[in-house]
């Protein structure tokens, strides 16, 4: 028997007291420890002092503004950050993701979804050993050999397709913005050439996805997320 893992420590920065109370209820019943901060400044302070395992950050805060808090936080911490935002605030979301947020949730959200996202963030935050083989559906990706097979047969992916797939798999379960994908795969000078991304992504999907179960989920206007049961 291994000793029970220590309860992960979470910091919620939100100015709405009801949201904080609800989050506390949801998260504590799921086995997390929860700290609260009402303003951005208090939140930054709390993050520095308590060193939480993950931060849930509302983008519309009365004092600093969520984006500002995130920038300060990222100056000295790589703690996973989950953004809460409202519908229609795509621009803010993208800015936050590009500024280093790890994922986002649009209000109103369900408790189940929140917990699922948190699980992904925390898993990623754990120093996982270098995975060399990833499987999803009937596809197997071997990062050391740089090969992709489907039902055992070799799949030929172009260099860009492979790079895209690799990037999405590395951030499995998390959203990767268009800009991040373009910068990583094509270089910073192509950050605006979304049509590259669309064309190659479409080709990649044709190769790795069965017709009815998409693994690569489109986050309209924001980016892509690799999702699968595992």
């Amino acid at each position, binding site marked *: 028997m291994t000793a029970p893992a220590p309860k992960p420590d979470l910091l919620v920065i939100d100015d709405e007291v009801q949201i904080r109370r609800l989050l506390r209820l949801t998260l504590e019943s799921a086995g997390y420890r929860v700290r609260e901060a009402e303003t951005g400044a208090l939140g930054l302070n709390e993050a520095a002092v308590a060193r939480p395992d993950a931060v849930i950050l509302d983008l519309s805060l009365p004092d600093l503004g969520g984006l500002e808090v995130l920038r300060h936080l990222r100056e000295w911490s790589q703690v996973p950050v989950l953004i809460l935002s409202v*519908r229609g605030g795509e621009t803010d979301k993208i800015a936050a993701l590009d500024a280093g947020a790890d994922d986002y949730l649009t209000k109103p959200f369900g408790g189940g979804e929140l917990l699922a996202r948190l699980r992904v963030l925390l898993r990623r935050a754990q120093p996982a050993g270098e995975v060399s083989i990833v499987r999803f559906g009937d596809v197997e990706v071997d990062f050391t050999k740089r090969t992709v097979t489907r039902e055992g047969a070799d799949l030929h992916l172009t260099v*860009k397709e492979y790079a895209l797939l690799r990037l999405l798999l590395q951030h499995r379960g998390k959203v990767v913005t268009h800009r991040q994908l373009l910068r990583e795969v094509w270089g910073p000078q192509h950050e605006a050439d979304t*049509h*590259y991304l*669309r064309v190659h992504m479409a080709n990649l999907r044709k190769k790795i996805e069965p017709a009815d179960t998409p693994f690569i989920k*489109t986050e*309209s206007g924001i980016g892509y997320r690799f999702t699968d049961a595992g």
Partner: protein
Amino acid sequence: MPEPANDLRPSPDALLAALQRDESRARRGRLKVFFGMCPGVGKTYAMLRAAREELRTGIDVLVGIVETHRRAETEALLEGLPVLPRRTFTHAGITLTEFDLEAALARRPRLILVDEFAHTNAPGSRHPKRYQDVIELLDAGLDVYTTLNVQHLESRADAVRQITGVAVRETVPDSVFELADQIELIDLTPEALRERLAEGKVYLADRAALAADNFFKDTHLTALRELALRFVAERVDKRLRELRATSPLKTVWRSGERLLVGVGPSPSSTQLIRWTRRMAAAQGAAWLAVSVEPSRPLDAEAQRRIEQNLTLARELGAEVVITRDDDIAAALVRTALQNNATQIVVGKSRSSPWLDFFRGGSLVDRLLRQSGPIDLYAVPAERAAEKPIAWLDWLPAERSPAREYGEVAVTLGVVTAACWFLTPFAGYLSVGMIYLFAMIALSLRVGRGPVLAAGVASALLWDFLFIPPLFTFAISKLEDGMMFATYFAVALAAGHLTARIRAAARHERLREERATALFHLTEALSAARTLDDAVFAALRQIDRLFAAQSALLLAGDSLTPHFAGSFAISEKERGVADWVWRNRKRAGRFTDTLPASEGFHVPLVRDDTCVGVLVVRVAPEAALTLAQRDLIESFAAQLALNVEREHLRAAGEREKLLAESEKLHRALLDAVSHELKTPLAVLSSALETLATADEATRAALLGESRTATGRLTRLVNNLLDQTRLEAGALRTRLDWCDAHDLIAAALDGVRDSLAGHPFESDVPADIPLFRADAALMEQVIANLLLNAALHTPAATPIFLTAGLDQARRRIFFTVADRGPGFPLEMRERLFQKFQRGDAARAGGLGLGLSIIRGFVVAQGGEIVVGENPGGGAVFTVYLPYEPHGNVPGE
């Protein structure tokens, strides 16, 4: 001393060249605009012809950019003219060609042709608009020829939209148009244009073809043509007016020919009218037909013939003027001056020379004497017509008093001499009769004063020279005395009567002019579609009639000058106008109140309120007669009527709007309160029951709560989206989108709601990428699917298709259902907010479709609703499509 080898002084040649360059730079180029009412009238054609003419005279002509639209006749004209190669560049993956401004400036021709003044340059050009290119060319000293349609004029674009219903996007500010040194109006009748259209001689871009049917309607064309003509005429008129303000109304300006034909009852007048029309058509001039009514009524037959002739003239396009005068020549000249006619056409006189002598010369002679700068045409009757009816040409013309007194003296002298020799045979009494005859004859020819003078003089002469005792003024016999007294009375009466007749004639004429002026005004006012038009027309009439400048101040919280005024109101005049406004009495010059001011101020009064002040200003040395001031007041009354009508209309509109918005608010409040309360009621009662419920009920209650929450969420989202749309806070981020991606994402969000409906989608695998705001488009598709699911019976199928409409370069998405569909009359207002389909089940504010349309339009697309063959509704979203740039394979 030897010159240093590298002398830095410029050579004289280089200096000279530099000087010449500077000189030509200092000279600003001249702009000539070929102006037309709509595409296809032949502006480019006319421009090229003019350019060829210039080229022939040795001018350095260059075709900067000309759109021939592959019309053979235009292309033929282009041959032999040097053409500047177009600049080619690529924008967003499309190869575009554009006018090359840099190359044109480098090449520096004397004259450059730049077609389509209002064109919007392709992105990446130096200026966003072509007219800015043209201004730069002009500044560089190049002469420019360009073309423009009236609908592209900023001030007229609205009018064109009202006429044709086609919105004009590319406009040229009027201030830029003012730069034109020369405007050539290319005019074509609507019939001719439609013919050209039918023969395929008019090029229409794809988009224009859509609107063409509407645009090229005959009525529209006529209206557009009028708009173009009026615009040019106004411009010319403005320049003329500036001149007119300073020069007295004694001459006509040869600003465009205008013909005037004198029309009488004679059948030869018909020929005269036709002749004038031919002349006018040949000169492209306007023409007037003038009938001069004598004070003595004409017989019925003559009257009928005049009417016939005037009707003919009207049918042939003349403006008909009827004036009243006993002197035809004077009347014709007067009418010509009033209407700025440059040519008078009359029939060649067929009356006898003897009669002519008596009238002071034939009509043509008298016209010749009086017409001054006006050209005169005496046209002979083409064939011997029936004997012309003598119409009142027999009364003498008005003369100068000195001349009339001279005439009196001469006549009396001749008569006296003749009588001197006659008395020995006829006796002195018959001499009296001869004098009386001369008196009557004179009274027909000369004015009141001379007639009275003649009466007195002849009586004295008779008494002194003929009545015994001779050479005294004494009269010895009683019957001589009675004769003398009778003579004196008759002579004076004759003089007096003549004068009265003349005064009556003059009075009649004034009334006539006044009636005509008022008639023209009411005609212009009723033709005006807006108050601005009406004010403009009225003020121009005043300017023209009184050789004055006029301005109108409209009353609101204070007096505001109307832009159509022909002079700027000074502070001082403003004060007078304010007084007039407050006191509702006329003031200013020619009145007792503030007579030192420049203008004559008349209030516009309707029902005891003053709606404005009309100010008329004439030159300091000129004066307005009582009759003229009277007329101005009548004008003011007419204008007041128009202003009031406009006020009433505006008030009515406001009231209607208010009522509408109140209705809307009530509807919104009802709907929102209902929509919010229902899910809230469900939630609160469910939560209360939850505590005590058993396991099965609890699950059901949770399900209900979830549904209620979903409904609330949708409602709030919709309200927020609508607010964003209305506040203009929606910023679209257009980006390359993949239809498959979008549809998958949209389906993700609405999968639960679609559960009860069989769903089929058909999207071609090779559908190209297109530019859209992915988040908005996902919402559009999701909401359309949701709508279909909510408003159709359970288990009816829903279809989703997408594809590329290659021909019209657009991407389409369709969502079709097998529900009840929408009746035709509903489709129009379906996309307005708070409209709910009749078949809509409870739920929804009727905002969904309004938001969808808002989102689609924000992305440059459109949405239409139609009928699904076999039942149901089809919503189709169109988005503009352009291919994306190259994507590197690796």
